[in-house]
């Protein structure tokens, strides 16, 4: 028994083993969606072996949301057909971090209409890295890990080289389509990459022909990245991403979006020393998000009173991270980072025959942070390794204008700025029991600060429970102890991964009714304030199986389950039910791949309507079918064709994390083509 514990404490992280499998060419092509992977590579390759995973990720043409949703640990909170919000093991919002290439960036919308993932396109990306635990190479303190979007990185090449890509796709449901193009120039000491994409969609139809009104969107996105060598092993890189959405409908909410714009800029300096395995990256960055909600397209009878609700978010930050080999089998990494984020959101209502009514919904709150991050990895022997990671962060929250302070003088007394120290720590052990079997375990102590919204919201309406929310500057940080166990078994034909996890949360932040307060929003049920409840628990499991009896054929099944309860055993909010994704894929001849997939969600009955306004959600199963083919004109020129149908049976359904149970799309045919040259 004691041996077991010792073993369990000395095992490799699932992400490492998974990463290793990624490079194992015999199982290369179906690795993504089937297993509990942590990193999804985005860029299209020219080889056939990658086609299947590209079919899963939609080439570059699916939305970032849709790619994220394919990760077994992730569910998306849907408020419409656009800008879905990732939920990692049913943790979302401030409990996870979302970064772009390590840069902190925060949405500007008070109604959570613009998660960071909505401002980044697959064309901008090299990969998406998901971590499920705090203290795991992250760029911020968290409870449940986070997502880092790795920006495209053009490569230096021996001779000079010019590559390009154009693509287009069409979807029958909603007459949606996209056009994209990219170009990359590389030489020995200079590299350049640029890409752009335009997307649009009309209202889509749910199953059995029901039109979902206000589900349209339009956007464009562009990205430029320039790299120049400054020495044998060093270079500078500049990145600029601009993303502009317009006329975006949110059927689950009472308002739509007039525009949502992001400007993201970064300048990095990278130094590498292959001999000592040293990598030193320093980055400064700035991003600006401008968001404006709009109710002018809604029918007059749906709009109790016309209002404007603009919001902005500005973040300036920098970090420097260095990783090196301390000695044989011992790697060390540390990072110093800091950022300053300023939010502002306001509302102006226009009553008939009375003066316009103005207020801040976010009264100019700001957060500055300085953080220190380290991770230390030691290979104890050829079978066992241990990794320790931690983060210490100092945060200062305050209101940066007098107008903001004046407004909240009616809610809070005294100094409402807050300073706090945050700590994350994780210890992870991995152990290869045999060449086919490995185990890993992780214990982590997570903590997260309340978000600026949780601290300083001013009557922000939440459609889900119909309450106006007031922030609470007195909130304590939320803390957790996380346990994570992984067992992986793999042979050439068969793979099984299991993962069991639990989060023991203390000072869990949630909304609580504030009696005696009158609502601001017309028709709201009441006013809630964010408070700490003593504890909450979240636990769950994932099981992934993959079977390839012969190389051209593969069956995979991923199953995930989470369950959350608060200190009084009430069900927590937005907890995804059991989800099962089962896929059969088959490679026919040279370069043609077919796949059939079923996505099932069990019924979710564990809800607390009284506390959180949630109602049970029916179970659902949909069937998807897809095929892709690569046409090679020359080794350098590849035309990728794919097509298929999602929700083949035209089921009318919604999932539990779909706000207001807005129906998901019904049957949808799609065709996509991408030319790489």
């Amino acid at each position, binding site marked *: 028994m004691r041996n077991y514990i010792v073993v369990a404490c000395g095992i490799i992280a699932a992400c490492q083993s998974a990463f290793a499998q990624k490079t194992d060419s015999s199982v290369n092509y179906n690795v993504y969606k089937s297993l509990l992977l942590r990193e999804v590579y985005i860029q299209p390759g020219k080889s056939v072996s990658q086609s299947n995973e590209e079919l899963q990720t939609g080439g570059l043409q699916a939305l970032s949301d849709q790619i994220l949703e394919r990760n077994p640990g992730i569910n998306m909170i849907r408020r419409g057909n656009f800008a879905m919000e990732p939920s990692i093991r049913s943790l979302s919002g401030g409990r996870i971090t979302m970064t772009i290439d390590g840069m902190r960036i925060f949405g500007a919308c008070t109604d959570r209409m613009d998660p960071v993932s909505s401002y980044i396109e697959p064309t901008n990306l090299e990969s998406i890295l998901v971590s499920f635990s705090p203290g795991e190479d992250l760029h911020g303190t968290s409870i449940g890990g986070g997502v880092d979007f790795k920006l495209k990185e053009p490569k230096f090449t021996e001779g000079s080289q010019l590559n390009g890509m154009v693509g287009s796709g069409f979807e029958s449901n909603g007459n949606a389509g996209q056009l994209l193009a990219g170009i990359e120039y590389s030489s020995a000491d200079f590299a350049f990459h640029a890409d752009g994409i335009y997307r649009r969609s009309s209202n889509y139809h749910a199953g059995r022909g029901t039109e979902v009104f206000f589900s349209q969107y339009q956007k464009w996105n562009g990205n430029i990245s320039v790299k120049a060598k400054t020495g044998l092993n060093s270079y500078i890189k500049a990145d600029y991403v601009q993303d502009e959405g317009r006329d975006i409908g949110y059927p689950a909410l009472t308002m739509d979006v007039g525009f949502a714009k992001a400007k993201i800029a970064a300048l990095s300096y990278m130094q590498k020393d292959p001999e000592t395995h040293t990598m030193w990256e320093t980055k400064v960055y700035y991003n600006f998000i401008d968001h404006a909600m709009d109710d002018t397209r809604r029918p007059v009878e749906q709009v109790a009173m016309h209002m404007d609700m603009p919001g902005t978010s500005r973040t300036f930050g920098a970090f420097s991270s260095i990783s090196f080999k301390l000695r044989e089998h011992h790697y060390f990494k540390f990072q110093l980072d800091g950022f300053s984020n300023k939010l502002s959101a306001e509302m102006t*209502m226009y009553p008939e025959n009375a003066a*316009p*009514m103005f207020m801040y919904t976010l009264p100019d709150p700001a957060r500055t942070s300085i953080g220190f991050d380290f991770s230390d990895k030691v290979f104890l022997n050829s079978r066992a390794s241990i990794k320790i990671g931690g983060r210490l962060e100092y945060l200062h929250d305050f209101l940066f204008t007098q107008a903001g302070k004046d*407004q909240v003088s*009616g809610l809070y007394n005294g100094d409402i700025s807050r300073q706090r120290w945050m700590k994350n720590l994780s210890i992870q052990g991995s152990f290869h029991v045999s060449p086919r079997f490995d185990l890993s375990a992780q214990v982590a102590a997570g903590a997260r600060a309340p978000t600026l919204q949780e601290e300083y919201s001013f009557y922000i309406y939440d459609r889900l429970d119909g309450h106006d929310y007031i922030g609470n500057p007195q909130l304590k940080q939320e803390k957790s102890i996380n346990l994570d166990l992984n067992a992986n078994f793999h042979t050439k034909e068969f793979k099984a991964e299991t993962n069991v996890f639990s989060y023991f949360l203390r000072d869990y932040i949630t909304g609580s009714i504030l009696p005696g307060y009158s609502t601001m929003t*017309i028709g709201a049920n009441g006013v809630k304030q964010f408070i700490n409840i003593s504890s909450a628990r979240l636990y769950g499991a994932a099981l992934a199986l993959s079977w390839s009896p012969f190389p051209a054929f593969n069956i995979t099944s991923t199953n995930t389950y989470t369950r959350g309860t608060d200190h009084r055993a009430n069900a927590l909010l937005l907890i995804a039910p059991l989800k099962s994704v089962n896929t059969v894929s088959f490679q026919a001849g040279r370069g043609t791949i077919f796949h059939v997939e079923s996505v099932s969600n069990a019924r979710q009955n564990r809800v607390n309507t009284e506390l959180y306004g949630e109602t049970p959600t029916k179970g659902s199963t949909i069937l998807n079918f897809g095929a892709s083919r690569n046409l090679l004109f020359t080794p350098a020129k590849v035309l990728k064709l794919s097509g298929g149908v999602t929700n083949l049976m035209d089921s009318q359904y919604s999932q539990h994390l779909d706000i207001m149970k807005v129906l998901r799309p019904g049957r949808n045919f799609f065709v996509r083509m991408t030319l790489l040259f």
Partner: protein
Amino acid sequence: MKKILLLIISATILLGSCKKDHKAEPEPVKIKIAEKTTSGGLRIALWADKSEFTVAYNKVYVSLAKPDGSEVNDASLTYHPLMNMISMQHSSPVEQPVYISTEHLYGGAVVFSMPSGEMGSWQLTVNVNNEPVVFDVAVAPLPSGTKYTGTFVGTDGNSYTVSLVEPVLPKIGINDIDVLVNRRADMMNFPADEGFIIELNPEMPSMGHGSPNNVNPAHKSNGHYKGKVNFTMTGDWRLHLKLKKGETVVVEDAALDLFF
């Protein structure tokens, strides 16, 4: 060398002092409404915070100067507002002036309870050392949707004039509120009433919501009740004031309206 040093030092001092002068806050601007001369040759001028008096609690100032321009700061002054209507005359609540040495003015206040116009016209008599000086003053109506003063008949049979003294410039957030209550003894006398317990409830009529964390105005002095009012947003606000004597409700809803 020494001279240059001295020059530099004195120049710096001069510049420094110059800067200080610029920083000095200008005195609150008062606007002259009218000017007269008493039989004794004193120049008496009427001043206000705004360019005209309105149907509200108005601060009224008087400056008094001898013919040579030197100010008189020890005169005895009283205000007597009077509304001349076709069928009747009436006065209104008044706060008698006292000398404010920092402003070189006598300051008091008058609650003009109705606008001047076809219904009648206002006179303000200033008694200077027992010599009446009569000013005809125009009282402008307030913008529609606002009500800074009102007269309410109580359950005890008395009429009460309730006037908003503060906030003059409302802002979002917590504001000091000052309410003046006067009882109508007769048409000419409106003594301050100090015996009320007031409950305050702000409301936005166009939306129906109120605001949290208001502090009921409590009596401070001379009929002034002071508390806090929380305006959560700009727009139209109605202040519901419930006037009680002990447990007895005297005025159920003395409502005043403002917007900003």
